[in-house]
């Protein structure tokens, strides 16, 4: 054995010894004067071994430090030195130093440890006690099975750095650590010694740490040996059968079956060797929390649960950093200082619980603190300040969603963060890192009581059950965790609604946005996607979920379900948003693995609670009063449904279809002695088919002084429905929004827009706006739907718009800047302050007196109109009557502004 081999072995063993020392020293500190002899002895022996070996190998610095530490431990063991925060601190520092020296073993002798040794000597002399001890942090490490698990579960690694590099090596074990009988992962007797590759690495020129290794239980190894044996048998069988002139197919099948089984078991067993207890990451936290508590002047009690929960090595490594940040965050921002806690009736010491457990095939990690919790309102304001949300969206967001905003990019105040909370790593990076390994994170908080952060992690990274899908001959893998279900649209694509640019899938009462994989990938369509019924293209839908987003992915074919091995893509390809990696399929070709959240963000399915949660237009009693409208429900065919607000309808007639005359491209109805111009929905809005029943309904309405009729082949119902669902994606010419009524997707018509398109000649061309500045309008409307509608049409028209949710807000806006607004458009029926009252106030106000006011209403009754005129309203308009409203605004502005 040459030097480098010896050194390598020493390093392994020393790491082993030192891996538990930190935890043990912390325990010793907690016990204080109540010295646990066995515990101290354990640490003593560990340091003793390190010292001895170091001396033997001529590692003088290591020897020096270890020697002194050993002496100190000896005195503790003899009860001559009582452990307290100060001296344990020094001991911890010594242990730290030893670890550091061991990591850089080649240069260890060149280091200068004089200062540390001096401190250690001071302790030994015991007279030299420092005048001030640092504030006593009380960190208790309590976990039900810590002692056992820490001892019996040594992976060769305690510190995270050592978890890098992926080799499984088996060590010659020299147990100076007590072995508990039920621990499966340990080696009793010396097994196969380190294979040569380990040493080849250590022969490197620089101070590269020797390859990391993992401990593997003998039982697992035996199993692997067995499986290898079976694999050999299978292979022999196969070769034998194939060497026959005509191989018997039946035989081949059974061999294939056996091979399949052995391979699966082999794979599972090897994966097991990579499983590591999460305790490996958890058990560095007591020290972290202790030091943190001390520097922050807080008292923090860290509890660990579930340290034995196992997950794949790569995940354990990957979770270390984010977890550190989160724990530090809890200590820094969560737990309050003792004075504050006591004032709030809480115990002076805060508790942070770090808990790991299995649930539904995943590993869950919880970080729970009983600290100050998060203030949803403060966060709301912050979000608006930082431009993450509009004020409106923020006010509508639930507390729970607001609190989860801390993970939003752009939200993080990490730049201001103290050095304590981490290296300027924001919470958004934490979430990204967790999501990158296939996990998710969310937070729940109660102001004053504390917060819980929940992390969900997959059991293993490397092998992922997936569905293989294809576009033409290109194959892609989609991880099964993201897949909700597969939907086949029978050739007629009936469940897909196409509305303008957007496509949605109708699935059990909800609308799911459709995403064509072909488009996402930028592949040219070989086939016209509109050709429904073409089997080979785009008839398979995979309903995908990523976080809270749901969408339906259109592919050509869904092939197989396979467990694939994830192969990372090289550096240049690692950051592509659509891909989560690559894999090698059975035929040796490479296939890309699709990243569901990457696809979702690519199509701008914003994680905006408002947008895609289209709900059934349900029980009107649930809806806020402002959003209930009486709607006329009609259909053009069995698959195209539309709705209109009733209040713009003058009357509805039922006429025989034969009464409709067609002149050129316009239709007319013989009506009451004259003719009524008719508009057919399908002339403006795309529909899948048009039916021609014998009798049709005509919805008569007035616009711009013209009377017109909308042809409704089928009139379904007239009733009150909720209008608070807006999915903007349905918007298009003539269509204001799309919703679901009675389980059918229904388009809400913008009747005036529709008319504008069908009969453009009716609409006056807009006079040139002869204003000296862009008019600023104030809109007061409590229904979100109508408010958005108004803002849109007004801005399209070129006005600048400020909006308010009710009269009170509007009043404040007006009085704060009296000269700012040129005209007010207000709803009449509003909560706090209604439109009429608002108008009254305006007319009484010195500076606002002459402000033009247009009142909007859905109730075109004379009573309210009279009241309004009395109050000083300049004009009354019906909400959805766009052209008339715009004309009115125009003329009212003219009066005021061009004087």
């Amino acid at each position, binding site marked *: 054995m040459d030097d480098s081999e010896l050194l390598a072995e020493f390093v392994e063993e020393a790491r082993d010894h030192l891996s538990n020392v930190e935890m043990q020293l912390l325990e010793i500190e907690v016990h204080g004067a109540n010295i646990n002899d066995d515990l101290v002895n354990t640490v003593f022996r560990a340091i003793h071994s390190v010292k001895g070996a170091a001396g033997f190998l001529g590692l003088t610095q290591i020897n020096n430090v270890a020697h002194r530490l050993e002496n100190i431990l000896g005195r503790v063991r003899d009860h001559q030195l009582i452990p307290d925060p100060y001296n344990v601190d020094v001991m911890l520092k010594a242990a730290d130093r030893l670890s550091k020296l061991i990591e850089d073993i080649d240069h260890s002798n060149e280091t200068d440890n004089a200062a540390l040794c001096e401190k250690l000597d001071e302790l030994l002399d015991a007279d030299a006690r420092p005048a001030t001890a640092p504030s006593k942090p009380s960190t208790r490490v309590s976990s039900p099975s810590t002692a056992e698990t820490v001892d019996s579960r040594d992976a060769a690694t305690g510190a995270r750095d050592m978890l890098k590099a992926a080799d499984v090596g088996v060590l010659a074990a020299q147990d100076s650590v007590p072995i508990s009988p039920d621990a499966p992962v340990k080696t009793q007797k010396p097994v196969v010694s380190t294979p040569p590759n380990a040493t080849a690495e250590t022969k490197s020129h620089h101070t590269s740490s020797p390859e990391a290794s993992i401990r593997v239980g003998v039982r697992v190894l035996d199993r692997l040996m067995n499986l290898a044996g079976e694999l050999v048998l299978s292979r022999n069988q196969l070769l034998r059968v194939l060497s026959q002139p005509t191989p018997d197919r039946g035989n081949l099948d059974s061999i294939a079956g056996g091979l399949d089984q052995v391979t699966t078991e082999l794979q599972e067993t090897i994966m097991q060797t990579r499983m590591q207890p999460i305790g490996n990451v958890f058990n560095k936290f007591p020290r972290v929390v202790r030091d943190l508590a001390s520097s922050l002047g807080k008292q923090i009690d860290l509890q660990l649960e579930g340290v034995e929960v196992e997950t794949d090595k790569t995940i354990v490594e990957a979770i270390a950093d984010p977890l550190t940040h989160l724990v530090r965050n809890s200590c820094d921002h969560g737990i309050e200082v003792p004075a504050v806690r006591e004032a709030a009736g809480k115990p002076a010491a805060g508790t942070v619980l770090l808990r790991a457990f299995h649930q539904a095939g995943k590993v869950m990690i919880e970080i729970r603190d009983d600290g100050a919790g998060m203030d949803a309102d403060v966060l709301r304001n912050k979000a608006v300040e930082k431009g993450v949300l509009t004020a409106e969206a923020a006010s509508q967001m639930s507390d729970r969603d607001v609190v989860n905003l801390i993970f939003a990019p752009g939200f993080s105040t990490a730049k201001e963060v103290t050095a304590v909370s981490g290296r300027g790593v924001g919470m958004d990076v934490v979430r990204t890192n967790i999501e990158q390994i296939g996990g998710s994170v969310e937070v729940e908080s109660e102001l004053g009581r504390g917060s819980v952060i929940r992390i969900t992690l997959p059991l293993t990274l490397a092998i992922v059950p997936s569905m293989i899908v294809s576009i033409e001959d*290109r194959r892609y893998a989609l991880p099964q965790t993201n897949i909700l279900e597969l939907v086949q649209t029978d050739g007629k694509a009936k469940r897909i609604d196409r509305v303008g*640019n*957007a*496509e949605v899938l109708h699935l059990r009462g909800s609308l799911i*946005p*459709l*995403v*064509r994989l072909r*488009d*996402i*990938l*930028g592949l040219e369509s070989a086939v016209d996607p509109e050709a429904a019924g073409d089997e080979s293209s785009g008839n398979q839908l995979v309903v995908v979920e990523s976080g809270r987003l749901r969408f339906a992915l259109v592919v050509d074919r869904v092939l197989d379900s396979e467990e694939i091995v994830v*192969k*990372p*893509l*090289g*550096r*240049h*390809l690692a*950051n*592509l*948003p*659509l*891909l989560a990696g*690559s894999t*090698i399929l059975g035929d*040796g*070709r*490479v*296939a*890309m693995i699709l990243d569901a959240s990457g696809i979702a963000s*690519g*199509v*701008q399915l914003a994680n905006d609670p408002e947008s895609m949660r289209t709900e059934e237009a349900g029980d009107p009693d649930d809806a806020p009063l402002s959003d209930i409208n009486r709607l006329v429900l009609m259909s053009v065919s069995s698959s195209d449904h539309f709705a209109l607000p009733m209040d713009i309808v003058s009357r509805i007639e039922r006429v025989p279809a034969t009464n409709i005359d067609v002149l050129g491209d316009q239709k007319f109805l013989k009506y009451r002695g004259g003719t009524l111009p008719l508009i057919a929905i399908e002339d403006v809005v795309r529909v899948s088919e048009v039916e021609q029943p014998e009798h049709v309904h005509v919805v008569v309405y007035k616009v711009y002084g013209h009377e017109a009729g909308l042809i409704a082949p089928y009139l379904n119902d007239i009733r009150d429905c909720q209008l608070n669902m807006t999915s903007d994606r349905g918007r298009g010419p003539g269509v204001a929004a799309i919703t679901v009524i009675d389980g059918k997707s229904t388009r809400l018509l913008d009747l005036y827009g529709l008319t504008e398109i069908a009969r453009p000649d009716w609409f006056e061309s807009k006079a040139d706006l002869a204003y000296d500045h862009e008019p600023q309008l104030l809109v007061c409307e409590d229904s979100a739907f109508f408010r958005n509608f108004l803002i849109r049409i007004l801005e399209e028209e070129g006005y600048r718009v400020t909006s308010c949710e009710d009269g009170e807000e509007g009043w404040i806006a007006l009085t704060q800047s009296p000269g700012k607004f040129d005209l007010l458009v207000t709803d009449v029926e509003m909560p706090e302050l209604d439109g009429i009252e608002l108008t009254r106030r305006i007319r009484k106000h010195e500076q606002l007196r002459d402000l033009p006011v247009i009142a909007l209403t859905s109730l075109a009754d004379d009573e309210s109109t009279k009241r309004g005129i009395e109050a000083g309203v300049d004009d009354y308009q019906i909400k959805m009557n766009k052209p008339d409203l715009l004309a009115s605004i125009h003329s009212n502005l003219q009066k005021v502004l061009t004087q």
Partner: protein
Amino acid sequence: MSHDHPNHEHNQEGQVQLVTFKVGDIVLGIDIEHVQEINRLLDVTRVPGASRMIHGVVNLRGEVVTVLDPHTIFDVRSSGTSDSRRNLVLRAGGERIGVMVDQVADILTIQRSELSPRPSNVRSVDRRFIDSVYLSDAGVIIILCADSLINAIDQSPELALAGA
């Protein structure tokens, strides 16, 4: 084959072995130190959204390796036939990356002193990729610098995302 001998034997004085190849009509060479292998793995899987300089990826004995398209990098047209095309797998800075070249030519063993410093007027190839130049009987051979080639691939992916 070749070993990683950073500061010994080949560099300062003495010999260097160059693998020469053609991309379009440009003749290029690269220090054999950086060449892991030359193979015929031409069946490249495209990577959606990747830089145009990247052909795609191949399965190199179980590892998914990125393959560059030097024609896009150097802005030349492809030459040669599909028979002559080869995948030149480079190794630099611990990374492996393939380069799809039109034709592999000779392996030249020359003296380091025969290499000329890169001239300022070589238009056909971006300066950053050029390590030096060798004047052979047949013409100028541009010696590439593997490291800068690998690093120069723009890492910001083209986002070819349709808003559905």
